[in-house]
Every structure is written in structure tokens, then in C-alpha cells.
């Protein structure tokens, strides 16, 4: 296993400072437990999330690229983003600035006016928290460090939309054995299996939770999420493991909403993969922020002897 990512620039993004606080806490805790260094990007800004592109996509490219230029200035070659939205937008900025002259022109112009160096592709690349742990530690490394196996815990691994789509912005994926797949992603499955979990065969790994319209079209989001939850239960899962704060919060919110509005109660628990991994590494439930989740999972975790 290469350790080139063992010291990376960390881009938490807005959600991890708000509703996704548990993801930030658990990512940092897992990094520390694994001895992986992270350095937070200095004075970062919002990547544009899923909203700014609807005002203007090139503006989103600029916002994301500004963060990449900060990483470059700090001397980093790798930015690690745990949030799927941030990860997607930074990857998209890398792609667009390497392939679309109009995007380059806007980025150069706005960067000059804003008074910082414009990001140019090639020097800094973005990875997901999954890549970070996988590249630096690997499955065997996780196996060797497990102190509290997840054995007996049935997990549906949910990757969402922005980790794999559209495929052209992820040139490193779909490269055969060892690489991530955009149609059947497996990095999260692999890491959690190494931590002892029993992954269920979940057919909706990359289905959509309606996160972009979680508040503006709540009824649609509730239907999409309810489908994800009931399918996970039908697959026998105790837990849905997430890797995105928007998906995670959407699943929690609409699980509550489906019960209140549609009278459909589901009991599957929702936890960030970093929370599960952290507990397997011997961290307490509190240290990985389980108390910060909207979805209450502590009874299940106690029952399974975790946290």
C-alpha cells in the first residue's frame, strides 16, 4: 500500500461544520487513530454545493477551484474531502479546467479579481475520505488494527449520486481490479468488511435520496428515501452506512418525515462509515459523534457490543 496520502489537505466544507458535524468528528478521530496526518485548508470557502451550479456552473467551478489553489499554496498535492458534494465539485473543477476553455477563462478572471492565484489542473488532485483510508492503510491494515470487530452487524453500503456520477469527472475510476467502480462502487464495502461487518447485497448503492430537493420538494425526497430504507430492511440490514452529509441527513430527516407524514415507520439505523470504522478501531460511540446523529442508534450499538 502506498502512503502518499498519509498527509493530506483536509477540506471539511460547510455541511461538516453544521448538520454533518458527526462526520467531521468521526473523520478526524479515525485519521488520528490510524496515525494519518491531516491539515485543514486555510480559510476555505463553500464549493458551491448543489445550488450554485443552478445559478451558473462556471461560478461553482471558480468556488471549488479557489480551494484547490489554497491547497497548492500550502504545498499539498492531495485534497481529501469526506463530503460527496464537495468531492464531486472539486473533481468537476479539475475536469472542467483541464477540458473547457470557457471555464478556464472565467476562473482566471475571477481569481485575478479576487486577488489569488488561479488553480491550474495537474498539481493538486482531490480524493474522497474512502480513498484516503484505503490508499494509506488498506484493507489488511484495517484488519490488523481492529479492536472491536463489527461482526454480527449487517450493513447496507449507500454511496449516493455524487461519488460516481457523471463518470467522466472521475478518470481514476473504472480502471479494472483495484480501482473503484462507478456502476458498483465497493470501497466502503471493502473497508467495512475488513472491520468485520457483514455487508448485505444492497441494490440501491448509487440510487438518489433526492438530497438536492430535500426541503424544496420534500414529498419527492421522502418517497425516494423511504424506498432506500425499506429496501435496506428487506435486504436484512441493521444499518445503512453513509459517506455524504447530505445523504445522511436526508435519510435521517425523511425517515422521521415518512413516519409522521406517510405513517411508514422504518427502524434501520443510519451511521457514517467513519463512525462504524472508528468504533471498530476501538473508539467510543461518543468519540465518533453517534450522539450528534438525528437517528438514534445507541441501543443497537450496545446490543452489538460496539462503542
Amino acid at each position, binding site marked *: 500500500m502506498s502512503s502518499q496520502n498519509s498527509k493530506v489537505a483536509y477540506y471539511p466544507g*460547510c455541511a461538516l461544520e453544521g448538520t454533518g458535524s458527526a462526520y467531521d468528528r468521526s473523520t478526524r478521530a479515525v485519521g488520528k487513530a490510524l496515525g494519518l496526518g491531516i491539515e485543514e485548508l486555510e480559510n476555505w*470557502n463553500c464549493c458551491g454545493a448543489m445550488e*450554485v451550479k443552478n445559478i451558473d*456552473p462556471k461560478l461553482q467551478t471558480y468556488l471549488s477551484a479557489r480551494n484547490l489553489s489554497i491547497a497548492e499554496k500550502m504545498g499539498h498535492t492531495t485534497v481529501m474531502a469526506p463530503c460527496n458534494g464537495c468531492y464531486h465539485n472539486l473533481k468537476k473543477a479539475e475536469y472542467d479546467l483541464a477540458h473547457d476553455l470557457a471555464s478556464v477563462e472565467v476562473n482566471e478572471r475571477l481569481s485575478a479579481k479576487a486577488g489569488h492565484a488561479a488553480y491550474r489542473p495537474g498539481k493538486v488532485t482531490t480524493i474522497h475520505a474512502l480513498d484516503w483510508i484505503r490508499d494509506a492503510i488498506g484493507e489488511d491494515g484495517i484488519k490488523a488494527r481492529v479492536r472491536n470487530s463489527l461482526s454480527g452487524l449487517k450493513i447496507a453500503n449507500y454511496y449516493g449520486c455524487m461519488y460516481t*456520477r457523471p463518470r467522466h469527472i472521475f478518470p481514476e475510476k473504472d480502471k479494472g481490479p483495484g480501482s473503484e467502480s462507478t456502476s458498483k462502487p465497493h470501497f466502503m464495502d471493502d473497508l467495512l468488511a475488513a472491520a468485520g461487518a457483514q455487508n448485505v447485497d444492497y441494490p440501491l448503492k448509487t440510487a438518489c435520496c433526492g438530497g438536492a430537493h430535500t426541503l*424544496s420538494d420534500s414529498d419527492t425526497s421522502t*418517497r425516494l428515501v423511504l424506498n432506500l430504507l425499506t429496501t435496506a430492511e428487506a435486504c436484512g440490514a441493521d444499518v445503512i452506512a453513509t459517506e455524504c452529509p447530505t445523504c445522511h441527513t436526508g435519510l435521517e430527516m425523511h425517515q*422521521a418525515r415518512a413516519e409522521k407524514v406517510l405513517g411508514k415507520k422504518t427502524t434501520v439505523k443510519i451511521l457514517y462509515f467513519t463512525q462504524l470504522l472508528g468504533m471498530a478501531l476501538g473508539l467510543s460511540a461518543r468519540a465518533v459523534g453517534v450522539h450528534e446523529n438525528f437517528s438514534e442508534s445507541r441501543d443497537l450499538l450496545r446490543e452489538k457490543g460496539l462503542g
Partner: protein
Amino acid sequence: MPIHEKSLIRKENLVTHERLTLEGVDVSGDWSTFIQPRVITDYNEAMQDEIAALPGGEAIHRCWQCGSCTNACTINALNSDFNPRYWIYLIRIGLESELLRDKDIIWQCVSCNKCTYACPRDVNPEGVMKATAHWLELKGHTPPSPAMVFDEVFSEQVFEHGRIEDGRVLRRFFARTGQALRQDWLVAMVKGLVSRLPVSLLIRLGLATVIEPKTRGWGPARAAIAEYVAERHAADRRALSLPAEESKR
């Protein structure tokens, strides 16, 4: 024998005659149902170019009508009227009146990008959906959709401060769309969380709603973005032959 394709024809376009004789032959009964002939003369020949001029719509001309987008679509699975392939067809031939029948659902695209993933022609159907929703609003066919209001509330905060605070986005969105913040399900969820969170964290979260998170030294970026946004708005309106808008602020 009924014509079994009848279910595919809209009711208002079917004509059934009680008694009918055609060229001396009595066709009353099973053979007396016809599709209303229609002659379309009101094609909007500018529609494709206008939508292609808006961000996201650029590659609409590449579409071959294979239907991979609709087949992959998350929203189509919930509502079969949500049909990106058909809308792209209508836009390309300029059938505006037909597109307007679906004007109130086009904004519901959730940007899951399954269509863009599946498209063999790099049309970027997700972008076309956003461009079409914009076009409908700019032309005055639809009021700003809840999704557009959300995008604006969110983006305004990013442009202003460089970062967002999600509680503030939520409150402003609910205020601007005239919804009560105390929705049953939201209250139940927050109560559950508050009962578990330590006081120190609650104080920190509370403070974040008062002291907005900001990127330091954002002033020059804010000005550059504001200038660019104004430039883009003006360009979009020009592309749609709309009069220049008086400045909002």
C-alpha cells in the same frame, strides 16, 4: 373491437361518432373512432437556440432520441409524465405549447446525473433540465420554483460570505416560501437530537446561527462574483430577447 392504442391518445383528441357513413359505407360502431386531425403552425423556432444559450443547455442539439435519459431517470420512476427525452424532442422541434403542458414539473429534476451517466451522446440532459426550468421562469411561464428559491437563498449566502450556515439557509428558505418552520416532523427530529446533545455543543450550534461562518478577506471575491452574476443575467436575458432588467439591489 376498440382501437387498443386509444389509451395512448389524449381523450380530448379522440372523436367518436354515434353514426357515421364514409363514402357510402356505414362505419358506425367499432370503426367510428378517430384521432382529431391537428395542424400545428405555432412552432417556436427560437426555442432550441434559446435553451442552448442558457447554462447547461449547450449540447441539446446532439440528442438522438434514444431515451437512455428517461430510462435512467430517478423522477420518471415516480412520475411517468417526467420525461426528459420527450421534452428534448419538443424543444428541438419547437413545440412550445406541448412543452408547457409539463411546465410545473420540469424543475423537479434532482440532479442525480443518472441521465448524464447514461447518455451516449454527451447531451448532459441534467443541464438541459436546469436550462429548461430557467427558460420557463425567464419567459414568465412559471413562477420561481421552490428549488430555484432554495438555490438563490443558498447561493446568496455563499456569494456574500464565502460559506453557508445550514440553519440559516433553512430558516430563510421557509420564510421566503411562506412555510411554517415548526413542521411536525422537523420539530420531532430536533427534539430527539436536543435531548441527546451535550450543552456545550448546543451552545456552539446556537452561536453559529448568530455569528455567521465567513471566509476571511472575501470582499474582492464577493465583488468579482457579483459582477460576473450581473453579466451572466444580462447575457441570459439578451439570448432570450428579453428587455434588460432593472437592478434588484
